[in-house]
């Protein structure tokens, strides 16, 4: 199949950037990134500059790949990362526009590569349970109901890709942050620090330049792990509880 690609090129954070146009021959069994590999090998052989993009596991779990494809973070297929998107989702002759994840907090480093380290710093602001390596109680000493464990897992499944931020009109990191807050608040081990955790993580989000949540729901629609916006409701309840609790 033949694809016309409009791809964002930007030399560095201060470069203004521009779209570049390419025609790519590919097959429907190729992944979207293999289509980019094909383009890049051709550009390198021709002595032209290849397109930089982030990727690593190519199994949809490391969260390193990004790209906004035809206006949608990770492209048109629901619950699918860019690396798992295959060309059979497109038709011969399609024109596809590819841009980086754009958000105030995410600096474009080069072409489609952005700096998502602000997400790490939000996690570092208490997105953990304070337990040191040692001899904790036996794992079965604390029974946790299956439904609770499953729900905590649903939120823990976040891969930290930042699609929710790229999809949000406010470039908010609410779904990302609330997924961690919800995962830990649901588990008895995480409840001890729940008030300080949510307070610090919300402050860190604001400090990093992420916007506020105004309930658009674009985050849930773009999340490759289909994490529910219920997490955001839970974060809001946790914030309220933290504000009402004695310090």
């Amino acid at each position: 199949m033949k694809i016309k690609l409009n791809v964002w090129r930007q030399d560095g954070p201060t470069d203004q950037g521009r779209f570049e146009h390419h025609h790519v021959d590919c097959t429907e069994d190729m992944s979207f990134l293999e289509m980019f590999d094909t383009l890049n090998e051709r550009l390198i052989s021709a002595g032209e500059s290849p397109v930089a993009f982030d990727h690593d596991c190519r199994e949809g779990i490391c969260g390193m790949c990004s790209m906004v494809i035809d206006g949608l973070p990770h492209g048109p297929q629901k619950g699918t990362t860019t690396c798992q998107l295959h060309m059979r989702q497109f038709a011969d002759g399609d024109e596809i526009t590819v841009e980086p994840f754009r958000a105030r907090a995410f600096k474009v480093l080069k072409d489609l590569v952005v700096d998502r380290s602000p997400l790490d710093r939000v996690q570092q602001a208490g997105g953990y349970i304070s337990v040191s390596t040692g001899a904790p109680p036996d794992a079965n000493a604390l029974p946790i109901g299956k439904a609770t464990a499953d729900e905590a897992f649903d939120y823990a499944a976040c891969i930290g890709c930042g699609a929710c931020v790229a999809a949000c009109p406010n470039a908010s990191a609410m779904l990302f942050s609330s997924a961690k807050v919800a995962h830990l608040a649901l588990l008895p081990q995480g409840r001890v620090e729940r008030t300080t955790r949510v307070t610090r993580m919300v402050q860190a989000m604001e400090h990093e330049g992420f916007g506020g949540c105004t309930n658009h729901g674009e985050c849930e629609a773009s999340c490759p792990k289909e994490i529910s916006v219920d997490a955001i409701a839970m974060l809001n309840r946790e914030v309220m509880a933290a504000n009402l609790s004695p310090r």
Partner: protein
Amino acid sequence: MKLDSKIPSGPVEDAWNSHKFNLRLVNPANKRKHRVIVVGSGLAGASAAASLGELGYDVDCFCFQDSPRRAHSIAAQGGINAAKNYQNDGDSVYRLFYDTVKGGDFRAREANVYRLAQVSVNIIDQCVAQGVPFAREYGGVLANRSFGGAQVSRTFYARGQTGQQLLLGAYAALNRQIDTGKVTMHTRTEMLDLVVVDGHARGIITRDLITGEISRHAADAVCLATGGYGNVFFLSTNAKGSNVTASFRCYKRGAGFANPCFTQIHPTCIPVSGHYQSKLTLMSESLRNDGRVWVPRDPKDVEKTPKDIPEAERYYYLEERYPSFGNLVPRDVASRAAKKVCDDGLGVGHVVDGQRNAVYLDFSDAIKRDGREVIADRYGNLFDMYERISGDSPYETPMKIFPAVHYTMGGLWVDYNLMSNLPGLHVLGEANFSDHGANRLGASALMQGLADGYFVLPYTIGNYLATAHQGPVDTSHPAFDAAEAEVRAKSQKLLSVGGATPVDQFHRELGKIMWEYCGMSRTEEGLKKALELIPALRARFWSDVAVPGGDEELNPWFEKAGRVADFLEFAEIMVHDALERAESCGGHFRAEYQTGEGEALRRDDDFAHAAVWGFEGEGQAPALHKEPLAFDNVKLTTRSYK
């Protein structure tokens, strides 16, 4: 090269406890004066960096990805073993030890494996305390499953994303130490050399992957947790960035590389669909618990759709050949069996390079027995992933699978303290060689990574720091000047080739050579041929590689060129090792050494040792050293899964 394994004397059951007591300690007030470098942030690296930070050491942790959470441990699907015996099915530390030594085909060190089995139980407790959401039963206790050739249910899991959840647990522990300032994290930073001062590992040279800046980092000890070298095959289940460079640089600085030919081919991966293929995707081995593996009995049926092949015409080759283990035989056995039926012309799927290389993994009986919902609950995410990649739904038609390179049991040689023969250089997780022998059992990689990082290194590194008596070293030392100059010279050499062939094409060619001659089945003739082909390919690389851009910018192709240059040298050591080991064991199958029934033929009298290769200088063949392996507890027997 001096290889002192430092295995404690006395019964294996008491070895670790008595060893821990005999290890020297670092005074709590002095810990902060010791700087430790951890390279890699996967299960081994993140757990080590976090635990060392908690103990009070001053830690610097490095990863090439944009976040420590991206390390490839995250992709592990199936589970983690632990000898908890929660299921009352006869498991014990001793049984896990026994299974691991036997599963490794008697090429692992008994004392290390026993310790691994012992601390496995602590890992589960630790992870639950961190909030890792393992699968649970309705009563609230942890669920277990049987996995990959084990006859007890000792595998803990979190749907098909166990590696992700365990890594996020370690990442959270690491974040806590970053938050307190005990760990300084360096992301998008790649280690390019090891700095050795007075025979001790004292630092590393790194490249900032955004700016290209070369930096020097000095420390009192260096811990390498940089994973395996499966990408030497180009196509593997590893992440695209996984590479051998850090380990290989240490090898060139004097660290021994042990058993490099021990590579694991995983039996259940999605087959290659075309020449553009950039990586292979694993389908968790847990699928073999419910899926039945078969091919058509008649080569004429290979193009038929599976539902048109009646039951009697299906060859359930694992169930027929191995009645007691059936579809759950260990990975090496299952992989070779799949290759054999495909080589015999019974393979299905696309024709690639003149052969159909795929077998069916069929869930229709399981769906009939347990219902679609139960199967979806167990494997839903894997089925979805399969459908996204292949376009077929495993609920409707059997999966097509074929073996792919997955894990490397070989790695830098370490003693019982996880220290290489270079004092101060510690090696953890997949990057070391010690625990899996010639074949790793399913759900044991996560166990080993976390055992090393949480429960072994934090004890043993203290002993080194307390006894090393090395003076302070800073980055102005001449050894840093020399290492940095070498790194810069290699960069210039790469950029000055000015050829026309992209790096990936060389990598792909190297992969083909390795898969063909040093893959699932190896022969003396083929290995000798590889020893001619690899240097020729390397010469072409250095005269014709195209590296676009420069080294003072974000340049993924420059990074890749450096890694492939190292693979092109490292591959030769692997082949030397495979040639030298004139026996078949675990993942290493030499066609000359097989039983009448086509099973692996081990030669314990000559090869019950770890083969450790030492660097002898550029252009020189590596030198072989041996660490003899003693089996005092598990009797040397022929593995049989019949």
